[in-house]
């Protein structure tokens, strides 16, 4: 029998690569996300004209933008499986944990790629000066992981409501709120040329870890009947 026990990481990787390949072939989520980001950014920039925004407002705008971009595309990982009916095969042959973390990893990569596209445009359009680049990048990564973690588990719930996508934002926002507030405050500090405390960064990291552990515990209840 040609069975060789490969570990969980391999399954997670397989699921992530599968989603990546399907996404690469259709390019639906990527282009929708990117266009959404571009339009919201342009509309902000057009409406404020040449006026410069205070740092805390700019920081809030950045995270509101990222949050709503995530809401526009990240539910797809589960909703798509449910709509096309492939979720049954995935349930039968994949383990819940591998599915959760595979999808989570895919969402994190999507969101990070989107952030990499948004940030230069953001700096360009809104004429922002970034001090402390290295800390800024850490804050962005932690914030993106938080958004991806919260939206992956809620996407699994939204998929069961027969594609009531408006629910996605409603469900995700309360769960994401602590991370959202701390990302905004850390970013505002960076834009004001103040180094955020190490405790701010630790808080964000701790939130991500707790959210992922909790998702992993409750996901089996969502995945199996």
């Amino acid at each position: 029998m040609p069975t060789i026990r490969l570990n969980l990481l391999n399954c997670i990787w397989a699921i992530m690569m599968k989603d990546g390949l399907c996404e690469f072939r259709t390019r639906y989520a990527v282009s929708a996300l990117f266009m959404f980001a571009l339009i919201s950014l342009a509309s902000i920039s057009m409406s404020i004209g040449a006026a410069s925004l205070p740092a805390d407002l700019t920081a809030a705008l950045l995270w509101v933008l990222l949050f709503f971009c995530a809401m526009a595309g990240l539910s797809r990982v589960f909703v798509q499986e449910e709509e096309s009916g492939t979720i049954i095969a995935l349930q039968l042959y994949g383990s819940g944990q591998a599915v959760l973390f595979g999808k989570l990893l895919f969402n994190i990569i999507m969101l990070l790629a989107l952030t990499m596209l948004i940030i230069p445009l953001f700096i360009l359009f809104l004429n922002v000066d970034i001090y402390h680049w290295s800390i800024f990048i850490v804050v962005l990564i932690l914030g993106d992981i938080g958004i991806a973690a919260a939206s992956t588990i809620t996407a699994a719930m939204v998929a069961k409501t027969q594609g009531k996508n408006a629910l996605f934002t409603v469900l995700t926002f309360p769960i994401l709120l602590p991370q959202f507030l701390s990302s905004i405050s850390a970013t505002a500090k960076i834009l004001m040329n103040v180094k955020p405390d190490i405790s701010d960064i630790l808080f964000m990291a701790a939130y991500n870890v707790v959210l992922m552990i909790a998702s992993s515990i409750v996901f089996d209840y969502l995945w199996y009947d």
Partner: protein
Amino acid sequence: MYRDISVKLVDVSKSIGTRVLFTGINLVVNAGQCLVITGPNGSGKSTLLKIIAGLNQPTTGAIQIISNNKQFDAEERRACLGLISPEIILYADLTGRENILFFTRLRKIRCNEHQIEGYCQKVGLAIDKDQLVRTYSTGMRQRLKLALMLAMQPLLWLLDEPSSNLDADGKRLIAQMISNGLEQNAAIIIATNEPWEAEHADYKIELA
């Protein structure tokens, strides 16, 4: 590995809302045996197979899959079975070959290109295996599910109307796969109304 697998249904019943599909099903299927479930549309054949697969919960009763006097847990149960059913849908944006590769990786079975080539050849998809499943006909999709079954080599086969959408050649293929599977000591449960598929049966039950 677990060559002495046996499936045991203990007092299984299912009702959806107030509609009772079946009650009090007790049976045992051992390795190398074939059970055929027949019954009219809506009698619950597919539901029973899904319950055995763990995709659906029985209203009462339990499914036990036993090997070496040890009962499998949910994870082990899923790892030992293969299901062919109209409800299983493969990824339309992957090619046939990629679908097989993906699902075998999920099942932690190492499967090389050469083997996949062989399975595709067997089910008659050798030419089309690198096309997107999106472009396949329904019959070709059914054949791809058969290839996936060959690649997974499950101990417990659950076949829900396996010959639907297949031509005469495809039906011969299924008959051959079933007898090969039984020779290799797999336990096979078929839900069908085709008399020729029922020929393999060691036992039959009819749902009303």
